[in-house]
């Protein structure tokens, strides 16, 4: 039976609704202006479970160690830092929901973001809507490219900068005819597309681009499609898919063929070449923070390794057998120090001052230090991308041995600005 509104019930409901809306508005206003002297909450959007769990462990550990260090140094602008961590479960839908929790329930004022490109892309619109700076750790270039906003930043590499720094070297040294074999989701597609662009720009040829579904167990159908005259194979897989690829490629004798394999760091992150019984031996990998200390041997790198408890050769945890995802987890550490510098430079007090932090981050330079143990870097003003030194390593006797350092000055030659996020409204 339809319920009719009387004048009394209408007034009753309207007053109740008005009171609720007023309370909500007061809450938002309180968040905008409050907390200028209390602890500053930074949210960590982290993959503690699911397919990225082996990485998430390190992101969580790195962020916690870095927060302890910042607090020992006096916090951010004199305010203690509190880290609020939410598990994205390596799932885009869950990740998006958890980001709202971080910002709206835990009152996180800045976010160190997910490493899962799908989560990152589904979360950025929410961070933008809630006017919260989101540092991406994942590598899909869209988040600081075509889908980027004024609130999206990264200190590390993306598929655009990886292609710009790694592909020219591989083209010169490994071969001119390429085949891309990639995991069929945001990161894999982005890796294949960005690398293809650079190969073709250099005058090379991409013979085939073969997408592989994420639930693949058997690689034979895809390996069988690789053209025989391929000189460089770019496999773009993560975690178990990467291990399955290297295992099956080796079983099919690809290591004996005249094909060089050039992969990105995600394909070997949190995995020691020793743990996969030599399946990746001889393959080349792009790294942003070399696993071996001797490739960047300085006091900050040494101290960082000591604080996160990893050895200086395999980046293996000294208290367990876990291997660090070293080319990614440093960002969870350094993003916190980048936020610290931007907050202190801009005089940020509360959420209403976020635009000042954005302006401070745009074009911000960071020096090699304990806060930035990966090395000197810049967040490029226009596309909010990390401009960093990179490394090409090769698996030799179960170790990732650096073969070439690509300085950030060389990287930008192949990485013109494509999107200007700094002119977008905050």
């Amino acid at each position, binding site marked *: 039976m339809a319920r009719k509104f009387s004048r009394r019930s209408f007034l009753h409901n309207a007053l109740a609704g008005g009171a609720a809306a007023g309370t909500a508005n007061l809450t938002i206003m309180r968040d905008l202006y409050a907390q200028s002297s209390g602890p500053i909450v930074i949210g960590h959007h982290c993959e503690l479970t699911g397919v990225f769990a082996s990485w998430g462990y390190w992101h969580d550990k790195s962020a916690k160690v870095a927060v302890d260090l910042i607090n020992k140094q006096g916090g951010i602008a004199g305010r203690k830092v509190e880290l609020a961590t939410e598990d994205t479960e390596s799932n885009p839908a869950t990740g998006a929901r958890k980001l709202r929790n971080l910002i709206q329930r835990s009152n996180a004022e800045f976010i160190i973001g997910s490493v899962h490109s799908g989560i990152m892309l589904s979360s950025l619109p929410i961070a933008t809507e809630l006017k919260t700076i989101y540092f991406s750790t994942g590598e899909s270039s869209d988040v600081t490219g075509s889908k980027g906003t004024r609130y999206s930043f990264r200190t590390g590499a993306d598929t655009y900068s990886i292609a710009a720094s790694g592909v020219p070297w591989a083209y010169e040294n490994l071969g001119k005819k390429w085949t891309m074999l990639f995991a069929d989701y945001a990161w894999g597609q982005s890796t294949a597309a960005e690398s293809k662009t650079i190969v073709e720009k250099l005058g090379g040829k991409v013979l085939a681009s073969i997408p592989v579904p994420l639930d693949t167990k058997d690689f034979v159908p895809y390996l069988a499609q690789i053209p025989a005259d391929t000189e460089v194979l770019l496999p773009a897989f993560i975690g178990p898919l990467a291990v399955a690829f290297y295992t099956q490629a080796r079983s099919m004798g690809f290591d004996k063929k005249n094909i060089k394999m050039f992969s990105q760091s995600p394909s070997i992150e949190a995995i020691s070449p020793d743990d996969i019984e030599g399946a990746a031996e001889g393959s080349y990998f792009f790294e942003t923070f070399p696993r071996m200390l001797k490739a960047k041997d300085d006091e900050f790198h040494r101290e960082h390794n000591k604080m996160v408890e990893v050895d200086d050769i395999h980046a293996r945890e000294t208290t367990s057998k876990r*291997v660090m995802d070293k080319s990614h987890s440093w960002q969870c550490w350094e993003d916190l120090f980048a936020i610290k510098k931007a907050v202190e430079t801009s005089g940020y007090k509360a959420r209403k001052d976020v635009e000042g932090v954005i302006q401070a981050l745009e074009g911000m330079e960071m020096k090699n230090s304990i806060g930035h143990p990966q090395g000197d870097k810049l967040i490029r003003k226009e596309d909010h991308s990390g401009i960093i030194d990179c490394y090409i390593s090769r698996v030799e006797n179960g170790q990732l041995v650096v073969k070439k350092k690509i300085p950030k000055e060389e990287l930008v030659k192949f990485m013109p600005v494509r999107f200007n996020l700094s002119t977008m409204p905050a």
Partner: protein
Amino acid sequence: MLDTLLLLALNGLIWGLIIALIALGLSIIFGLLDIINIAHGDFFMVGTVLAWFTLNLTGNFWVAFLIVPLIGFILGALVQRIVIQPIRNVAALSIVATFGLSLILQEVVRITFGATPRRILPPIQDTVVLFGINYDVYRIFAAFVALVALAGFFLFLHRTKLGTWMRAVRHDRDTAIAMGVPAQHVYIFTFGIGFALAALGGVVAAPITTVEFRTGVDILPFCFMAVIIGGLGNLPGTAAAAVLLAVLEGIIQSFADPTVARISSLVLMSAVLLLRPQGLFKGLAK
């Protein structure tokens, strides 16, 4: 082109036999107990992890072929007694219970084994040139093991007293009990066999694929498709459907995108559900 087509069809046949081993376990659990076992992929995963531990403890992978199905059988019997038995008369609850079991198995493995994927070296490391491609000899061996296990299972089902009991309870539980068949023991035994088959599938597949806590998640949908196309609870039909699906996908993959191949399998499954809901291989059911 023809070489690729033949290679992928053959590879589909080989992979299909391994999948059949896993799907068969799913089918007997459904056929006898009416349990939709969401955790079945994780039984497979447990098999791969136990194979890894066996290899590391004994230094001999072959031992895993014997030990792991045995452990799988014991685990299966325990699961039936602790998780399935209390909800046996409420089939709908089985989805919730086995989903919970799936999460528990994954998290236990993540805590004990770790989240890092590992590799097991194939015990046979030769390749043979098939249709112009170096083909892994271990895969041919794996298919042979799967074939022997499938044949052994069907012989057991039709030539032993216990197998006859299993078929009898599946056919008519009340009459079987009236005839003196210990139905409760048959249930426990059946669930144990289902787990053991999936675990054996894990041992066979471990050197081909990876060992990690989520490896069972992706294999489950394919097994369910085989069970549906073969006919729910139809054991020979399930095995035949697994091989058919894998060969079909292999053939399509030789000329089209792999996603198209998977879509084709789903279309086939939908067509079977609409036109032959009893499954493609109804005549094979005994």
